[in-house]
């Protein structure tokens, strides 16, 4: 038995984690509320798994393993009801969005656990700056080799997920001009970025042992990669998404990942190649900066297309798979409608223009997230 055994799971099963903002309802700044909120949720026996995160202004909501978009959405909605009800009783607001528009990083408090205190002392100001809110999507894989293949192939589509989910245009009280400013914060960590170019699970295990023997990492948790295999769950984990403003959009992103994974694992459209990563950082930057309007370079043929055009071009390839998974309308709406409906970053900017107040923007974010049906 290898030390980094990949625990197989049912292929294409789904799960997501959402990091959420806790704000006060007075000036809508981030506030210290996680422990009070979790206290209430523990007492009321809330559905699903809701955990503290590194700062007191953040909680993480995790779904269970789901087979379909419909099941995932139903579960997320039930969890949202519980969290929103608890928050209302405490006069707190819960919001999506990849970053809080105007919080000052040094105001944050570290949630009091051994691991978080360790991270805070190791990373110093980075730990507090890391008050950003992401969505992680897990897709089940049959074995480690499949996980490595999908991890590489998903890198081609990482800009899609960045642009579709982008919801952090503001940071520390300024418009960053980025659609997703959150990912730039992640870049500061030494173990961020992407998986090295390994061809299978054996090779990956070799890399991991080396890193561990160097004393650089202790577990997979220490890699903050954009897409990473998660052997203990038997999944690949897509970590580039900002937490969207609504549960429905979070579920739709998961549905797209599922359809894409099915297309890739069944059709194997390309062999993996190092070339995938030649344009990776440029495309990633473009998607963070310009969102759906970013111009992507195709790593295989060098062609150029805007993200929303590339989404439209991608849909026919995944449509049948989405159909089989029962999520075609959702994926179609997400991909084909991207250009017109835009992403959350666009909506947030429109909101700021209208209200001229970051506090009003956050209040609206809370309404978006806590509202019963969206």
């Amino acid at each position, binding site marked *: 038995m290898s030390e980094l055994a990949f625990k197989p799971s049912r292929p294409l099963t789904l799960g997501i984690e959402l990091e959420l903002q806790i704000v*006060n*309802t*007075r*000036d809508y700044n981030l*506030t*210290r*509320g996680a*422990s*009070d909120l979790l*206290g*209430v949720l523990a*007492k009321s026996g809330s559905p699903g798994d809701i955990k503290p995160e590194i700062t007191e202004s953040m909680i993480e909501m995790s779904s269970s393993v789901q087979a379909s978009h419909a099941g995932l959405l139903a579960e997320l909605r039930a969890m949202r009801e519980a969290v929103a009800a*608890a928050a*209302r*009783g*405490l*006069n707190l607001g819960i919001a999506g969005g990849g970053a809080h528009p105007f919080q000052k990083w*040094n*105001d944050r*408090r*570290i949630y*009091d656990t051994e691991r978080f205190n360790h991270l805070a002392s190791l990373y110093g100001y980075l730990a507090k700056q890391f008050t950003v809110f992401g969505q992680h999507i897990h897709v089940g894989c049959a074995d480690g080799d499949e996980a490595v293949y999908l991890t590489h192939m998903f890198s081609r589509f990482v800009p899609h997920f960045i642009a579709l989910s982008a919801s952090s245009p503001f940071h520390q009280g300024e418009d960053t001009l980025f659609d997703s400013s959150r990912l730039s914060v992640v870049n500061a960590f030494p173990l961020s970025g992407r998986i090295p170019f390994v061809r299978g699970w054996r090779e990956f295990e070799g890399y991991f042992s080396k890193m561990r023997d160097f004393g650089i990492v202790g577990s997979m948790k220490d890699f903050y990669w954009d897409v990473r295999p998660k052997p203990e769950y038997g999944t690949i984990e897509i970590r580039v998404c900002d937490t969207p403003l609504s549960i429905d959009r979070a579920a739709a992103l998961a549905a797209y990942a599922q359809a894409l994974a099915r297309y890739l694992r069944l059709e194997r459209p390309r062999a993996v190649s190092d070339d995938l990563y030649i344009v990776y950082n440029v495309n990633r930057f473009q998607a963070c900066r310009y969102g759906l309007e970013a111009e992507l370079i195709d790593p295989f043929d060098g062609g150029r297309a805007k993200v929303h055009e590339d989404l439209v071009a991608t849909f026919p390839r995944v449509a049948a798979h989405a159909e089989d998974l029962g999520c075609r309308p959702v994926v179609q709406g997400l991909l084909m409608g991207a250009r017109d409906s835009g992403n959350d970053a666009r909506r947030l900017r429109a909101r700021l223009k209208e*209200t*001229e*107040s970051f*506090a*009003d923007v956050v*209040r609206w974010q809370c309404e978006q997230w806590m509202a019963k049906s969206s």
Partner: protein
Amino acid sequence: MPDLFFLPALPLPSNQIIWFGVLLIAGVFGGEIAKRAFFLPRITGYAVAGLAVGPDGFALLGRPMLDELRVFADISIGLILFELGHRIDLGWLKRAPRLALTSLAESGLSAIFIYFTLTQLFGVGPLHAAVAAAIGLATSPAVVMRITADLGAEGQVTERALLLTALNCSIAVLALTALIPSLYLEYRGGWRIIVLHPLYLLGGSFLLGLVASALTLQVLQWIGKRVEVQVLALVALILVTVGVALILKLSVLLALLAYGGLLRNLDRNRSLAAPDFGLIGQMFFLILFVLAGANLDLAAAGKGIAIGAAFVAVRFIGKTAGVVAFIPGSGLKARQGLLLAVALTPMSGLALIMLQDTQSLFPEFGRALASLVLPAVVLLEIAGPILTQLALKLAGEARPEPATKS
């Protein structure tokens, strides 16, 4: 000496500006000494500094000067009560009706306990006891607001302490107004005064608050969302409202509470960002506490030490019982509930102002009342801030120390 006409005449005249400065600098020193040497809250230092420069201390400031400086206390209390009123979030009370019950319970029980302790144990007459109980049920808003701001406290204990304080201050002011007819019955006045004066106070002050908040909404709409401009305009409007309330002989307390509360709950579009008076606010807080300290009558308090201790003890028991009774199902743990009750202990400037207001209407009654209330105020002037600070720290809601260094 016509050739030296430009020199000031002797003895040198003094003016209010100097004494205002003296108060400020005494407060600054007192606050820093309390903080650095004794690890006490700054406002405890402000009050001690006031005591030191006041008539009962080194008598730098005499009673007449204190009366002249009262205008600054009025402005301070205006700003504080406005901000307090603005913290009354009716939406939260509607979503969590238990909070309203908690407020009624802690206010009611502390008042009842004070009333019966005074009448049964100390043989105080029912009217005196009732007015003392009405004054005693209020938590010092200035202390709670200042301590939470100083500590950067955030969390449920903090939020609820602020809300319960806003509510019990409103209840106290209303109860005191409601007792005015009984006072007239006892001392003077025909039925017209008995009926009309409280109505005038209530209705007039509320109306003033309503007009002020409606006007403010108009002004804010025109100003837009730039916070600095908003704050200046708001301070100006608060000053005008305090002044008008004084001219019309209305209740500054009621008018400003109504102003803040109505503004918060009428402001559907949230045109007002959360008011933060920043440095201006801090200066007036300081002045209020120094003046409160300077106004303390230690001799009277010393005589009433037994009454004061009993007053403070049963008030605390009442507040604790009221808060703890509604803890189950409130979302707080029992420990948090206890700390919340402790945080509600302070009693300070607001009590003094309510006392002075009563005194100015009924001088004879007021003197007797002061001997009941002042000892407790003196005790809590010093102990209150310390207890609130301790409670919020134990609740884990104060900003962690390293962050405050930077």
